[in-house]
C-alpha cells in the first residue's frame, strides 16, 4: 500500500480497528463499546462505526468467524454454517480443562457459599466475572439468592450437577479445610515475628 489513498485520519481509524480486534480477540466476555471507547479514548459512536466496518469486512471476505454483537458487547464467534466442524473439533479435542483460576473460584464458591461476586473478588484479588460466567455456563455454580444488604448482590452457590460430578451427596461432605488455613491472627503474628529482625544481635562486619 505504497500509494496511500487515505488521508491521515483514516490511518488513525485503521489503528483503532486493529486495537479493537486485539482486545476483542482475548476477551472472555463480549466487550461493551463503552469499555472500548474508554480504553481507546475515542467516542463510543466512532467505536461502533469501527466495529460495524470490521464486521462488514469479515463478512465480505468470507471469514470463518464474525464479529457479533451479543449481550451488549462485541465478540468473535464462529459462523453458523461452520458449526459441524467446530463440533467435530470440540468432540475430538481432549485437552479442554478447568483452568487454575476457574478451579480456585469454584473451590471458593463450594466452601464459602452463598457468596457474592464482590466477596470472591476480594478473596482472589482479581475480577472474577469471566470465570464466574464460565462456571455458570458449565452448570457448576448458579445464583442461589440475593444479599439482603443495600446492593442486593447476587449470591452464588454450587449446583446439584457439581455435587454429582464430584460424587458428593451434599456440600457438607466436602473434605474439611479449616485445619489447613491459618487465621488472619496467626498470619499477623508471624508477620510480627518478622519485624523483630533477628540479625540485630548478629551484626556482621
Amino acid at each position: 500500500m505504497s500509494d496511500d489513498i487515505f488521508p491521515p485520519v483514516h490511518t488513525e481509524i485503521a489503528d483503532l480497528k486493529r486495537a479493537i480486534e486485539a482486545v476483542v480477540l482475548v476477551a472472555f466476555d463480549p466487550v461493551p463499546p463503552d469499555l472500548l471507547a474508554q480504553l481507546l479514548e475515542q467516542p463510543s459512536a466512532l467505536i461502533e462505526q469501527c466495529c460495524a466496518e470490521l464486521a462488514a469486512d469479515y463478512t465480505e471476505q468470507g471469514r470463518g468467524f464474525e464479529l457479533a454483537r451479543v449481550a451488549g458487547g462485541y465478540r468473535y464467534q464462529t459462523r453458523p454454517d461452520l458449526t459441524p466442524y467446530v463440533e467435530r473439533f470440540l468432540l475430538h479435542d481432549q485437552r479442554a480443562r478447568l483452568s487454575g483460576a476457574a478451579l480456585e473460584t469454584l473451590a471458593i464458591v463450594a466452601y464459602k457459599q452463598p457468596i457474592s461476586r464482590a466477596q470472591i473478588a476480594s478473596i482472589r484479588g482479581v475480577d472474577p466475572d469471566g470465570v464466574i460466567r464460565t462456571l455458570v455456563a458449565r452448570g457448576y455454580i448458579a445464583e442461589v439468592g440475593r444479599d439482603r444488604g443495600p446492593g442486593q448482590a447476587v449470591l452464588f452457590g454450587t449446583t446439584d450437577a457439581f455435587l454429582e460430578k464430584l460424587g458428593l451427596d451434599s456440600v457438607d461432605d466436602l473434605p474439611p479445610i479449616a485445619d489447613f488455613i491459618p487465621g488472619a491472627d496467626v498470619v499477623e503474628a508471624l508477620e510480627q515475628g518478622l519485624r523483630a529482625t533477628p540479625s540485630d544481635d548478629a551484626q556482621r562486619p
Partner: protein
Amino acid sequence: MAIDVATPVFDGPFDLLLRLILAEEVDIYEVSLATIVDAYLAEIERLQALDLDVATEFLLIAATLVELKARRLLPGRADVDLDEELALWEERDLLLARLLECKAFKDVATVFARLADDADRSFARQVGADERFTALVPDLLEGTSLERLRNAAIRALTPRPEPTVDFFHVNPVRLTVADAVAELVDELPRVGRTTFRRLTADLAERIEVIVCFLAILELYKQGVVQLDQVERFGEIEVIWTGERGLRADELLIDVYEG
C-alpha cells in the same frame, strides 16, 4: 585491577569465576591469576561470614585455583613432580572446559530471555467456544478429584502475606521456599517443638527470615505443623504434628521463587 564483587548476585562457582575473569572493564592482558584467586577466596569467605552454605563445588574449585596460583609462584621448576604437574594442567583444562560450557549456556539464556520478552508481547486467544457449544465440550470437572478441589480451596483461602522484598535480587543459590520447606521437614520432626524465633535466630538476612516464614506457612497449610501463640506478640511455637520420615517432595509446594 579492581574487581567489584560487593554485589552478592552470582549463581554458583562458575558464575563467580566467569564474572571475575570476564568483568567488562578489565583488559584481558591485565587479568592475573593471583588477583582472581584472591577475589574468589574473598568471596567464599564473605559467603561463609553470611552463614550461607558454601557448596562443595565452590571449595573444590578454590582448591584447584589455589594450586594453580601456588604453582605459578614457584620460581624454578626443577623440583616439580611431572605427574603432579600434568594432573594440575589436566585440572586446569577441565576447569576451562567447564567454564566455556557454562558461558555458552549463559549466552543461550540471554537469547531465551529475549525470545520470551518478544513472545510475551503477544497474547494468545484462550477463550474457547461460546455458549452455543457448551454441551459438546467434554466435562471440565472430569478428572478433578476432591483432593484437587480441596487444595485449590486452601490455596485460594489462605491469607497471603505480601512479600515486600524483591526476590530477584536474592542470592539464588539457596533461598527458595521449597528448600526451606525441605530443611524444616528434616529438622522439625527431630526437635518436635520449637519457636519461630529460634528457627530464624541464625538467619542473617531479612529475606531468609521471610522465606522461612513462608515455608512454615506452607507446612501449616499442609497440616504438618501446629502454630501456637500464648500471648499476643509473644513467642510463636511451632509444633511438628506430621509423620516422622515425611519427605519434602511429598508435600504440595507453592514455590515463590522466580
